[in-house]
């Protein structure tokens, strides 16, 4: 899933302080699981903002709503009938949701309420770690299903670099060296000989390098 981290309340206050009718819009998907933008976080932020504005002596309406998703038309349509009551939306969805909300309600200011991070697994509650950067050309078959693009600090495709020490990355002893993991895994699969196959130059045009990306599936289009 996508993980997001909380944005400091003071930053959100700074973004919205000129508005008087604000909708805090949560999302029931990834940001709920990572406890950054679900119904509960919407409640906490809204309550804090209401108290803040009251304390400042300002009359500001702060309402709460959480949608099933903010990355699909049908769920975002659910707020069409109420959106006119507001002059700003703070979306606690990932950056995708913030943008899609803004696209749909073109004249409505929409502000991000979280910092969107990356694609993760939940290792334990409160700990999310990166596994995929969506490079668009998956090489996991070659690397024992451990991704050097997302898990090596240098995206080295023929690793490790010289900085791998005791299984850890040179940039931080808390980070596993992806290539140590790959070698361990190839060994466990009895495929260590594959290590010596050179990974060719990668086609990064399917990554960020190729500009904004699209997946088009004519077979499922209507």
């Amino acid at each position, binding site marked *: 899933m996508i993980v997001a981290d909380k944005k400091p309340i003071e930053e959100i206050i700074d973004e919205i302080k000129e508005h008087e009718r604000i909708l805090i819009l949560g999302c029931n998907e990834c940001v709920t699981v990572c406890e950054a933008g679900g119904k509960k976080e919407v409640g906490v932020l809204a309550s804090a903002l209401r108290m803040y504005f009251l304390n400042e002596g300002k009359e500001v309406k702060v309402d709460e709503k959480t949608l099933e998703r903010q990355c699909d038309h049908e769920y975002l349509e659910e707020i069409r009938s109420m959106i006119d009551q507001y002059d700003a939306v703070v979306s606690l969805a990932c950056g995708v949701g913030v943008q899609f909300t803004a696209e749909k309600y073109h004249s409505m200011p929409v502000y991000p309420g979280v910092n969107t991070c990356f694609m993760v697994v939940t290792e334990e509650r409160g700990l999310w770690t990166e596994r995929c950067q969506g490079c668009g050309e998956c090489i996991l078959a070659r690397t024992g299903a451990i991704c050097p693009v997302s898990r090596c600090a240098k995206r080295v495709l023929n690793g490790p670099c010289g900085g791998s020490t005791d299984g850890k990355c040179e940039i931080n002893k808390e980070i596993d060296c992806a290539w140590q993991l790959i070698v361990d895994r190839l*060994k466990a699969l009895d495929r260590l000989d594959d290590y010596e196959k050179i990974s060719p130059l990668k086609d990064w045009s399917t990554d960020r390098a190729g500009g904004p990306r699209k997946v088009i599936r004519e077979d499922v289009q209507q």
Partner: protein
Amino acid sequence: MKPKTPSKLEKVLAAGHLAVTSECGPPRGSDPEVIVKKAELIKDHVDSVNITDNQTSVTRMCSLAACIRLKLLGLDPVLQMVTRDRNRIALQSDILGAASFDINNILCLSGDHQSFGDCATGQNVHDLDSMQLIQTIRHMRDEGKFLGGDDIKRPPEMFVGAAANPFADPFEIRVPRLAKKIAAGAEFIQTQCIYNLDKFEEWMKQVVDRGLHEKVSILAGMTPMKSAGMARYMKNRVPGMDVPDEVVKRLSDTPKEKQAEEGINICVEAIQRLKEVEGVRGFHVMAIEWEEKVPEIVERSGLYPRPKVD
């Protein structure tokens, strides 16, 4: 072995001599005299001189410009190139720029992570890795073609090198990783600084067992320690460095004012021992900000005078 390029380093190796290289770090400024002075100190005692490429990710004068300075002085520079800061357009372009000054050696590296340097919040590139950079240069040189497939007019003539760390993790792939670099096209190897001679000899034995020493010229990396403090720092703080306790002890048992001299002694003894190891084809003496000691080390190790080739 017949040399494939005009590289002096390659010629020395092809003639069967033990090669000696050293390195200079470019200045953190634009004064060309800094690099010229360092080069003057060592030029008669080494065959070729590496110029580092923004080592430890600290911004410096570019390796290419400093190499050109050396070339103009009549030296044989080794252009170090990291894949951290350039995409494949810039890499190929800088290679051609270097070739236009007849810089005939290149060392391919991934580069320290930028978080260690003075631009820790910057972006890195890593379009290619060091292995793929080796392939790229060999492709440009041997096929005379760009990565995109077009012909290169006057392709680069470069002797292609790579780094190797005989002590690096994971243990299982220390030798396979060298084999992979050779398969990618590396012709010479400069190793990480060696202090643990036993472990290095063990590695060399495995290299020889696989016949890899026939396919690549291995130059053993040597860095004299200036003090016991430096030894401890290298041991504890530098990733991938293997400094045995007895080296640290030997230096710390030496009075402070004699530690530098003792550091040189250790270095000379190591070279003398490793000269006899099968597969060792030369030495890469990295006297970090201590270039003036290179002549002494080379002389005392019995590697002077340097052979004349052409």
